[in-house]
């Protein structure tokens, strides 16, 4: 699963997800992409599930870029634990995604294949997404 190699602090505060993704909201590498339409914490498992779905669909053709990285730890207290006694243990790693963020990019395949592959990936995401192309067509 994706997670940072080194971190400065083991746990983080939750933060807020206001506004739009003013960075990382245009296609930078590929011809086609999957754009987030809502904000969410996307977990390492969801990113990995989407990656596997795409690579299995396109087999050996095409190229894939993952534009989000789960660098935020989220913690959870064990079940049936009384409150207090400090913050819980790190449960998973998530990527903070705001509306407009490009999640995946693809190139080297035709639009129909890219759309089908990214549709599979969209089903692994916890938010609505949109298929976009470099020429502006959706």
């Amino acid at each position, binding site marked *: 699963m994706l997670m940072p190699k*080194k971190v*400065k602090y083991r746990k983080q505060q939750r933060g807020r997800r206001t506004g739009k993704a003013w960075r990382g909201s245009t296609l930078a590498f590929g011809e086609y992409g999957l754009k987030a339409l809502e904000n969410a914490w996307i977990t390492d498992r969801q990113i990995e599930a989407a990656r596997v779905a795409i690579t299995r669909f396109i087999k050996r053709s095409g*190229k894939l870029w993952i534009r989000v990285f789960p660098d935020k730890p989220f913690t959870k207290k064990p079940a049936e634990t009384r409150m207090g006694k400090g913050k819980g243990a790190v449960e998973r790693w998530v990527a903070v995604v705001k*509306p407009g963020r490009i999640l995946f990019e693809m*190139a080297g395949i035709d639009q129909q294949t890219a759309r089908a592959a990214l549709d599979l990936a969209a089903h692994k995401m916890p938010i609505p997404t949109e298929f976009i192309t470099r020429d502006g067509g959706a």
Partner: protein
Amino acid sequence: MPRRRRCAGGGKEKEFIMVIEANRREERGKNGARRLRQAGRVPAVLYGGAGEPVALAVDVHQAKQVLRTAGHNVIYEVQVEGAEPARAMLKDWQLDPVRGDLLHLDLQRVAMDVRIRVRVSVQTTGEPVGVKVDGGVFERVTRDIEVECLPSDIPEEIVVDVSELTIGKQLRAGDLPLDPAKVRLITEPQRVIAHVIAPTKEEVPAPEAAAAAEAAAPAEPEVIKKVRKEAEEGEEGEGKGE
């Protein structure tokens, strides 16, 4: 949209000068900009050259049409009420990240006799041999290059045939067909424009190997602060020992 046909180069070569009609914008700030967008206009700014920067408002449909049809490497004639028409280029534009609405335009004045640096799109034609025969993946690494030329000589786009590319071969910026008398390449000639790479193969690890790798992988990332503290403590301990 107002479009005017104009002859250049002794009448042999014909060019279109697109006209952008704009009003001066008195209201500034985000509230004013929002009110302007509600009214179907886009805030814009005209700057550069000899004149002072002017805050403008452009009709949103006209601005969208300009972006869709002409693109950014085109000389426009910006007509502002109460001022001389100015020749300008679209320097930058901002879009809403979710809805794609046009938010702002930057127009830069250009002098027709001064060479300028612009980014020109590179388009490829043909299917590379490496893809057709060897099953490689064609990848466009650089989509535009920077060139220096007169505003009237800006190429609309640079089209290059890539059908000869094989796996492992690259098309570089120096290989692009440019007219050296008119256009000078600014991007480094070694910059890769496109290449054909061997297809990647996803290695599915055996269940046992995957389990072993998962067990060997650290469950938590290394904490930088902790490592440094431990190292400092170790040094202090050694110092005391001496």
